[in-house]
């Protein structure tokens, strides 16, 4: 797989995850090239969120490995021996992978602006004035510069999710992970979040998106992955997977959601 001229940004090799006796992921292989948008779709319980959470080690894989720019995530070689990283070592790798959650998870005791500057100031040691300037630029980008001093509780779900995207972008990640970013939103608020994500994709951000928004997947994704029962059933360009599904399970799923 490494024969191509450039190394993929993210590589997943034989990744498996079990919760007790229940195997959620069964030997997943996947690559994400820099600048690509990968959408993961599939019925609920198919393991797509678990896969996403294994990418930044929020879930510890039972076996297999994830590589970010060729380096194993959460693991460290020392000669012949392989060690698990401590939480604080892992935090260095996690800075390079932003994540947006279904439930937003903004810090409720901080304003939108404080949410965005928190990690740059505390983790990277960026001077506060500079962090504020950058944060205002990001809030403007997601269309919320005039809400900078609002607390999360004073914002709608769509606005909270856009702040959460700005908060992740503030760490200048190489890759953005989206875990069903619009599933907790009222239908009329979905569009504003998708618009921000579309804009990010156009700017060349590498994104892995777990979603139920088939229209977004069709229009924005460079690569579509269909998962069911803990395996990747089918993957490829969205036009091919959606237009000419090869597998019966894919056809059954698409018939249900379309």
């Amino acid at each position, binding site marked *: 797989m490494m024969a191509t001229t450039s190394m993929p940004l993210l590589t997943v090799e034989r990744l498996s995850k079990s919760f007790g006796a229940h195997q959620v992921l069964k030997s997943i292989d996947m690559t994400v090239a820099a600048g690509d948008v990968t959408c993961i779709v599939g019925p609920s319980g198919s393991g797509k969120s678990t896969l996403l959470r294994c990418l930044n080690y929020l879930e510890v894989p039972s076996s297999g490995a994830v590589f970010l720019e060729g380096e194993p995530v959460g693991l460290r070689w020392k000669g012949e021996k392989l060690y698990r990283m401590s939480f604080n070592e892992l935090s260095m790798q*996690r800075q390079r992978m932003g994540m947006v959650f279904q439930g937003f998870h903004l810090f409720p005791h901080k304003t939108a602006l404080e949410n965005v500057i928190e990690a740059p100031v505390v983790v990277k040691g960026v001077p506060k004035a500079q962090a504020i300037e950058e944060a205002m630029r990001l809030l403007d980008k997601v269309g919320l510069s005039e809400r900078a001093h609002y607390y999360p509780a004073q914002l709608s779900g769509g606005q909270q999710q856009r702040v959460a995207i700005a908060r992740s972008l503030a760490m200048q990640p190489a890759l953005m992970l989206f875990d069903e970013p619009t599933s907790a939103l009222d239908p009329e608020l979905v569009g504003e979040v998708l618009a921000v994500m579309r804009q990010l994709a156009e700017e060349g951000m590498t994104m892995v998106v777990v979603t139920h928004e088939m229209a977004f997947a069709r229009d924005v994704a460079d690569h579509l992955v269909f998962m069911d029962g803990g395996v990747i059933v089918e993957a490829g360009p969205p036009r091919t997977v959606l237009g000419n599904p090869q597998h019966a399970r894919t056809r059954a799923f698409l018939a249900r959601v379309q």
Partner: protein
Amino acid sequence: MAESPERAAGPLHRHPDIHTVKPVDVFHPSWWIGGAVLVGFAILFIRLLITNENLQWSIVWQYLFSPEILAGLGRTLMLTFLAMIFGMIIGTAVAVMRLSRNPVFRSVSWVWIWFFRGVPPLVQLVFWYNLGLLIPEVSIGIPFGPTLWSASTNQLITPLSAALLGLAFTESAYAAEMIRAGIQAVSAGQTEAAATLGMTQAQTLRRIILPQALRIIIPPIGNDTISMLKFTSLVSVLALPDLLYSAQMIYSRTYQTIPLLIVATIWYLVLSTILTVIEHHIEQRLKGGASLDWQTIARSLFKSRFWGVRRGEALS
């Protein structure tokens, strides 16, 4: 007679326009009867306070600001705050142990909480004070090796240190449970969000978890401080001259038992009222609300809604 009132409204039953008349409120005889009985008792009680000569108000006044009482008051306050501070420090450690993944930490902290919540503070105070009978000597050294320092337990355990041990350990068990609940009330999503931003565990605890947990923990801590103020009166069994024991020492000389107990009562009430007001102020600040006026504070001291307008009536 079976006709509805509207149609029966002939010349005999001419009502005024219903929209111009204010209905008479429901009469609650039990409110008035119960209220009258209570007012009667209150008057009797006030009369007792004024007319009963055994109360000796002049003596109450004479001792209220006496140096001996004020010194006792100072010791009561010092004990309250030291016991709370030590209790909180130990309690935070026990709470973090309770949340640990290490089963030894979890079991030890469970046993600690179980023990110190289960044993009455009075029993503990006496026990700690008599620790010398159980362990005659305390020494610091290398186990099974040379002793570097040692002292007799009776020298270390003074009434003050016994009191502090008993009160702080009891408080630590309660504080641990409150702090644990506060930390657990902050959703796991907060920790995950901080982790994906690259924050370390210490940064997450300090900047994300504790500020949110604190809002949940502050009100019960305030309550505990007020309870602790009252619990400190137990130390009089160790002959530690706190507020109560100072009063007892005076009346054992002068036999003015009731006036001196009233002196102590007045001071306990004053202190617990002040602590309540401070607690409400901090709570309000944490909520980010406006600063409090005295009416809100007075109302919150007596939170009963019994005499207030009932919700159904207020909405009608």
